[in-house]
């Protein structure tokens, strides 16, 4: 295989892995603090992407055309709005069901996800059709043989990396992160330390949902297109990545995200059948990993949860 083409596949895999990792970290954070699976997470990503799109259209209508400014506002508006939505979901839908069986929360968030993406389909103008996402970043590209490095892709990757490092620092180096880890390990004792449990849960949902919004904008900028159903597959992949990595462990979730993207890339590249089978291959391997390591690659016993 041509080395340049291989580089192209790797670049694409890294981009996908970054998005999956960002989504997976959300799943794992929610599970950490509340032991719940939030199935609406993928659709929060969709709403975030559409919030970003609407913002960019609004800015264009206002005549603001400075590209760097638009990009920053688009990211910020999506992240802020989805953080608020995440906190709202936690406060009014997930926390009230805290003493109910976990299955109820699962069903509720599943239904909420449907409500969210159907709302996008029905209420966004032409929402049933894929929407073009404006290319807000530099479209310059540098060619090295068959490998073309797009400046926007490189910027997105760097931004994603910065966000992941930011989450790592937040969880491990700040007082807020310490409180989140304490709540994840022992809710009652965390309360006895004077931690406002409800607040920590809301903040955690806000962080996770903000990450999903970031991933949604990344998706839009990378593919130049978003649609109301985009969150479904991304949600399932993010959830799988979190499970494969060992639910409750953020490093596991990050590894799981990149692993899934690597599997898709291998499925598309190295296997004898058509690249359309890449998801079948990737999910098949995930099923095998789950059979081999039911508690995930980084099992909870040896790892620090959240």
């Amino acid at each position, binding site marked *: 295989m041509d080395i340049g083409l291989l580089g192209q596949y790797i670049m694409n895999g890294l981009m996908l892995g970054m998005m999956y990792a960002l989504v997976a970290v959300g799943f794992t954070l929610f599970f950490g603090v509340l032991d719940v699976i939030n199935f609406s997470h993928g659709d929060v990503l969709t709403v975030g992407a559409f919030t970003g799109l609407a913002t960019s259209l609004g800015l264009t209508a206002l005549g603001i055309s400075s590209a760097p400014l638009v990009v920053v506002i688009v990211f910020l508006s999506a992240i802020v709005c989805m953080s608020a939505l995440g906190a709202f979901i936690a406060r009014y839908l997930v926390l009230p069901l805290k003493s109910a069986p976990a299955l109820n929360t699962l069903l509720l968030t599943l239904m909420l996800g449907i409500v969210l993406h159907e709302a996008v389909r029905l209420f966004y103008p032409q929402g049933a059709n894929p929407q073009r996402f404006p290319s807000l970043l530099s479209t310059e590209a540098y060619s090295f043989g068959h490998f073309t490095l797009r400046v926007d892709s490189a910027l997105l990757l760097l931004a994603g990396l910065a966000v992941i490092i930011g989450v790592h620092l937040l969880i491990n180096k700040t007082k807020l992160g310490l409180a989140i880890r304490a709540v994840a390990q022992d809710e009652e004792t965390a*309360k006895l330390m004077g931690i406002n449990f409800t607040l920590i849960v809301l903040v955690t949902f806000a962080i996770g949902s903000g990450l999903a919004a970031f991933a949604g904008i990344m998706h839009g900028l990378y593919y130049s297109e978003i649609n109301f159903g985009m969150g479904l597959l991304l949600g399932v992949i993010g959830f799988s990545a979190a499970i494969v990595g060992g639910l409750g462990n953020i490093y596991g979730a990050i590894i799981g995200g990149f692993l899934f993207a690597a599997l898709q890339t291998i499925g598309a590249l190295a296997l004898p059948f058509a690249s359309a089978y890449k998801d079948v291959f990737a999910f098949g391997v995930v099923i095998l990993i789950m059979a081999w390591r039911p508690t995930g690659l980084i099992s909870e016993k040896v790892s*620090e949860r959240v």
Partner: protein
Amino acid sequence: MNVVSEHGLIVQGVYTAYDKADVLEDVSLTAQSGKITCLLGSNGSGKSTLIRSILALTPPSRGRIVFEGNELTGLPTHKVIAAGIACIPEGRKVFPKLTVEENLQLGGYQERSQDVVAARLQQVYETFPVLKERRQQIAGTMSGGEQAMISIGRGLMSAPRLLVLDEPSLGLSPMLVKENFNIVRRINEQGITVFLVEQNVHQTLAIADYGYVLSKGRVVAAGTADELGRAAEVHQAYFG
């Protein structure tokens, strides 16, 4: 007993239920400021439920809880803690996957000043030098006695005015139990009000000023430590 004073902890006519079955019925008691008050009772007498009620982990269905004249009834746990109360929970409950120092820092969670937290940390390390040596160790890998030190140190990190201890000697070797009681006495000598829940009758009464005996969710005896030491109810509550 039910006089509302400006000082100490007052529990007044508390009823607490799990799934509608009352575990506590009309419990009233006072932990006088600056004193060691103990609560004795056998397994299942409702001691832990009373602690959970005071700390709002299982809020009472009726009754009042007042600390230093402030109404705690109906407040969430973190606000009860903010009133100046710290708890050393049953089974010590260190955060097993956090380091010793992170555990201690969580004890001072509500203190905003980093300098104050650092100063308190130094105090705890002076009291328990072994914790300083092992401050980067993961708490779950330490021995029961060391975890007891973490739990007590963590409780002191908020500089509480009332320390609630739930069976601190449970599961410790006799030597450590003795050491534990000495530590409780020394904490009290620093002016911290102590509310001590224990099964270890003799050693508890030896350090306590005043005590209550709980049986089947009701206070069946109250008195000074000397009085309780002689009272038949104590024996009955434990052995009857």
